[in-house]
């Protein structure tokens, strides 16, 4: 066991797989020599050589095409998109190419690619660096979407993502990169893709969330326990496509009330999908409508007002009070 930040855990996951499987390659803008703008890949080029870990020209579609083409030759690329906002430049290769590879070739070809990218607010970065665009990929058949909230999950999910024979969109929350630490086992272990985690047990209401909002939700759960004396269960989805609806339904059977918390804007997206699935599977267990606590439907906030724009513990407490008082 070692005490690691998220970014160290992510790096360790990639290191384990680079060492284990010679078909794993890691590349993107600035990931080789300097080890990435956040140092997520620091030292890996030195350790594994320039043929395994390398810098690319500055062109996201080129990076996506490189990944897809390498997959056609049996490689397992990890392609870094330097910031989430640049994803639209590579969108064709992710959505129209890699995610469709198995389907359109009837299984003759596959695209075992990890597209990893930092995202997420609360760090006052330049615009188009921190948007929560995961919803776009929920509507993309053929790709999985993973968003870890802590170092242990980050490493285990990274290893699972690299070993997966289908493309995985791996989103790394910027604010969590260095703000939290946790115990991380050395060497190999996996956290399964598609499996949620109950991070706090409770009886009176359930918060379903993911990414940095897991931590904000845990604060809210503590607060409402003190102020109102209710116990709130918190589910960390960890994977938002596919959604682990069974774990959610189990919790709702117990608590009968739920809210979904996402950092992304309110309309559509993961929260809407979670609620739709709860409707289909657990509506008779509900004592109140399932509400969303999310960011307002504007373009991502200007830095000056970013902290108010992002869901706060208070807004989550308000949401819980609404479903508890219904």
């Amino acid at each position, binding site marked *: 066991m070692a005490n690691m930040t998220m970014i160290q855990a992510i790096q360790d996951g990639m290191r384990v797989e680079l060492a284990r499987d010679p078909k794993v390659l890691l590349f993107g803008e600035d990931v080789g020599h300097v080890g990435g703008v956040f140092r997520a890949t620091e030292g890996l080029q030195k350790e594994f050589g320039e*043929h395994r870990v390398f810098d690319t*020209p500055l062109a996201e579609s080129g990076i996506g*095409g490189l990944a897809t083409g*390498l997959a056609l*030759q049996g490689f397992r690329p990890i392609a870094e998109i330097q910031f989430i906002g640049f994803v639209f430049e590579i969108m064709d290769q992710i959505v129209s190419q890699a995610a469709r590879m*198995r389907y359109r070739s009837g299984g003759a070809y596959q695209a075992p690619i990890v597209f990893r990218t930092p995202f997420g607010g609360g760090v006052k970065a330049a615009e188009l660096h921190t948007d929560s665009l995961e919803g776009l990929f929920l509507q993309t058949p053929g790709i*999985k979407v993973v968003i870890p909230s802590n170092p242990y999950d980050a490493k285990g999910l990274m290893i699972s993502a690299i070993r997966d*024979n289908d493309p995985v969109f791996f989103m790394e929350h910027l604010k969590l990169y260095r703000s939290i630490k946790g115990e991380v086992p050395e060497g190999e272990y996996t956290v399964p893709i598609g499996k949620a985690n109950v991070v706090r047990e409770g009886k009176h209401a359930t918060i379903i969330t993911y990414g940095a909002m897991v931590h904000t939700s845990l604060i809210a759960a503590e607060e409402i326990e003190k102020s109102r004396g209710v116990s709130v269960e918190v589910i960390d989805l960890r994977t938002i496509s596919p959604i682990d609806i069974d774990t959610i339904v189990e919790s709702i059977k117990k608590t009968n009330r739920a809210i979904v918390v996402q950092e992304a804007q309110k309309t559509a997206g993961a929260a809407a999908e979670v609620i739709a699935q709860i409707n289909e599977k657990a509506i008779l267990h509900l004592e109140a409508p399932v509400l969303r606590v999310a960011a307002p439907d504007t373009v991502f906030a200007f830095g000056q007002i970013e902290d108010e724009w992002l869901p706060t513990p208070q807004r989550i407490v308000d949401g819980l009070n609404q479903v508890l008082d219904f």
Partner: protein
Amino acid sequence: MSNQNYEVKIDSIEPLQVLSPSGEIVNEAMLPKLSDEELKELMRRMVFTRAWDKRAVSLARQGRLGFYAPVSGQEASMIGSEYALDKEDFILPGYRDMPQLVWHGLPMYQAFLYSRGHQHGGQVPADVHVALPQIIIGAQIVQASGVAMGLKLNGKKNVAITYTGDGGSSQGDFYEGMNFAGAFQLPAIFFVQNNQYAISTPRSKQTAAATIAQKAVAAGIRGVQVDGNDVLAVVAAVREAREHALEGRPTLIEAITYRFGPHSMSGDDPSKYRTKEEQTEWEQIRDPLVRFRNYLQAKGLWNEELENQAAEEGKETVNAEIKRAETVDKMTIPGLLESMFEVPPVHIREQIEFYSAGGEK
């Protein structure tokens, strides 16, 4: 004013030609080494492909084929470039490039299934080294660099070749793909069939660049222009590009050609954007088959009997392969769902059960 030369200038180039349009050798030095049998085989494939195209156009009109992009007029570019490859070179085609796929080993009935909208069309056999036809113009060009890097890392002495048209050369992916190949010194060939029109938009409106070949210069790779209706010039250019590619020097080849037919069989009318005179000139004076036939006849290698035989073989093969395509089992919704992931996640499994049980109640 200084005389310093600080402006980039591209010298004008002339397309490589080995045979004149009437079939005489005009560039002995570039004549590719081909045995008499190989020369006849090239001709056989071109005649076969012309007959196949003619038949496919009619099948598309009857609704027995779906999306179909006619190839007549471009046989020298298509057949010649594929012929110059090794069997294990990897082709990344555009949607018009079905002849290269089939001559590289994709069973023709699968090409027809692809056109008809059947998944088995894309189930490329393991020993056939091709990607599926690309619909997004340019997406295959960036992928070509990935395939080429994969071949290089795997220690293969093979190249990736990707095809697009004059329109495709305007896409950002066109530059990105060439630039990656140059930067990583990859075994790649970028083959542009400049057939003068991107659907209806003429080459003159695509770019202010005097040639498409010169776009290689900006990416730091080799650029050549070739008479795309001269099959021997195409073979020579691709063979040469292959040698360079294996040394880590990618090449952009611009092949000047012309599509005789419409863009596709979905309502395009070329008379709206091409003059009759232009069309007649390409079809009658610059037809790649006429040129090569004249050359072979003068050498005593080709005659009417061989011509008819090849055309008949093309037609009969198409008839047999379309019948075979028509007998392949219909797809099912559960089958499609099964093919989304290696291991279907819960929601997919539920939908498989739902549709297996008959779907909506």
